């Protein structure tokens, strides 16, 4: 695991006994600007590294774009079209998607890179595994879809469209309006943020658990138990492969749901 984790493990190993990974993993000590609102710890640095990586990759691609693409450009175009067409346009339609395209593309590639740091040696920590980033992402989408809905239909029209289901006998609205309100204004953003955050956090904890256990069985456990290190390592390896999928999947789901929510807010049909 990361340098700090490795340090923890060594300390733990030195102390003897096995310490399961804890939430403290996600709140390492501040290393820069301590005490200020710009306080930086390891997670923040990892996020910034991932941000620089995605920006450099996209900018290099955009900079070298040619009419007849090479391999790198083709691959990037494939990825970009997966987002622009596969996610945004297929959900919202070409005309509506155009306006929100920068946000959706930024969300997809951003989340992908902030997620993937958890699989990169010496970083080993998802930028999205600490709640701040999922909250900021969700807030951006949340504000966007409400703002887009209000801009499209006016405040009254938007609220009416969002909360009142058509073709329902009126007494049902006593029940349905609060449910719709909670769905649109509370549940949707909450699940959007928690889904990403929890997936990343738990995946990381699983990886740490598997590999620290492997380390424990190999180094500290009595000879009879060293066999278990094979099982825990295999488990860790499996989780690692699974995380490769989840890293992409969560970026996809987040971008897709963003499109779905925006589309629901600006479309006439319920």
């Amino acid at each position, binding site marked *: 695991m990361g340098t700090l984790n490795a340090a923890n493990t060594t300390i733990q190993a030195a102390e003897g006994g096995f310490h399961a990974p804890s939430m403290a993993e996600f709140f390492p000590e501040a290393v820069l600007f301590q005490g200020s*609102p710009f306080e*930086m710890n390891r997670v923040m640095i990892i996020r910034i590294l991932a941000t620089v990586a995605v920006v450099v990759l996209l*900018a290099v691609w955009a900079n070298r774009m040619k009419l007849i693409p090479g391999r790198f450009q083709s691959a990037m175009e494939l990825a970009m079209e997966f987002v622009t067409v596969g996610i945004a346009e297929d959900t919202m339609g070409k005309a509506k998607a155009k306006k929100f395209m920068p946000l959706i593309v930024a969300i997809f590639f951003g989340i992908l890179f902030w997620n993937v740091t958890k699989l990169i040696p010496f970083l080993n920590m998802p930028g999205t595994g600490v709640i*701040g*980033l999922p909250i*900021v992402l969700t807030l951006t989408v949340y504000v966007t879809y409400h703002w887009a809905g209000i801009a499209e239909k006016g405040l009254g029209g938007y609220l009416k469209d969002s909360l009142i289901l058509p073709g329902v006998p009126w007494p049902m609205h006593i029940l349905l309006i609060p449910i719709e309100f909670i769905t649109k204004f509370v549940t949707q953003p909450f699940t959007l943020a928690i889904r990403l955050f929890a997936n990343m956090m738990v995946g990381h904890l699983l990886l740490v658990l598997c590999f620290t256990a492997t380390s424990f069985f190999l180094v500290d456990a009595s000879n009879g138990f060293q066999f278990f290190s094979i099982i825990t390592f295999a488990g860790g390896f499996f989780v690692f492969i699974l995380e490769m999928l989840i890293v992409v999947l969560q970026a996809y789901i987040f971008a897709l749901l963003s499109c779905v929510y925006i589309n629901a807010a600006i479309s006439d049909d319920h």
Partner: protein
Amino acid sequence: MTPVHIVAASENPLLPALPDIIWSAVCLLIVFLVVWKYVLPAFNKTLDERAERIQGGIEKAEKVQAEADQALAEYQKQLADGRAEAARLRAEAQEEGAQIIADMKAQAHTESDRIVAQAQTQIEAERQAAMVSLRSEVGTLATDLASRIVGESLTDDQRSANVVDRFISDLESQSSAQPVKGA
């Protein structure tokens, strides 16, 4: 499960710390701005250019096709015109040929008539000449013969001429009377 180091207030993982929010927002903003201002416009521009190039190619091909069609139609029209012209010329030539043949025939006819007439005239003239020479020779011979027979000189021109003339007139009256009779 005691963490090795002391963690600040945000032990609840669902409550974000302020720096967490700030750095998240900074990161998202940077990615968003780069995508919005630089990456997507470049991407869209490339796609548009590519589509335009393909579109241009299709249009060019259509134009060339239309030109080829027009050229073909023109060529076919020219060919048809040429054929019609050829047929017309052939008909004209045939007509002209027939005309020429008729002219030639007529000309040959007159020519042959003329030759025949000329030949007849010539024959007549020769006959006349022969007649004249015959007359004189026969006269001379006859008188010579007669004078030998009679012993008398008939060389007296005046007289001998009278005798010959009379003789020939008899011959003529005989020869002209006989065919009339015979006819």
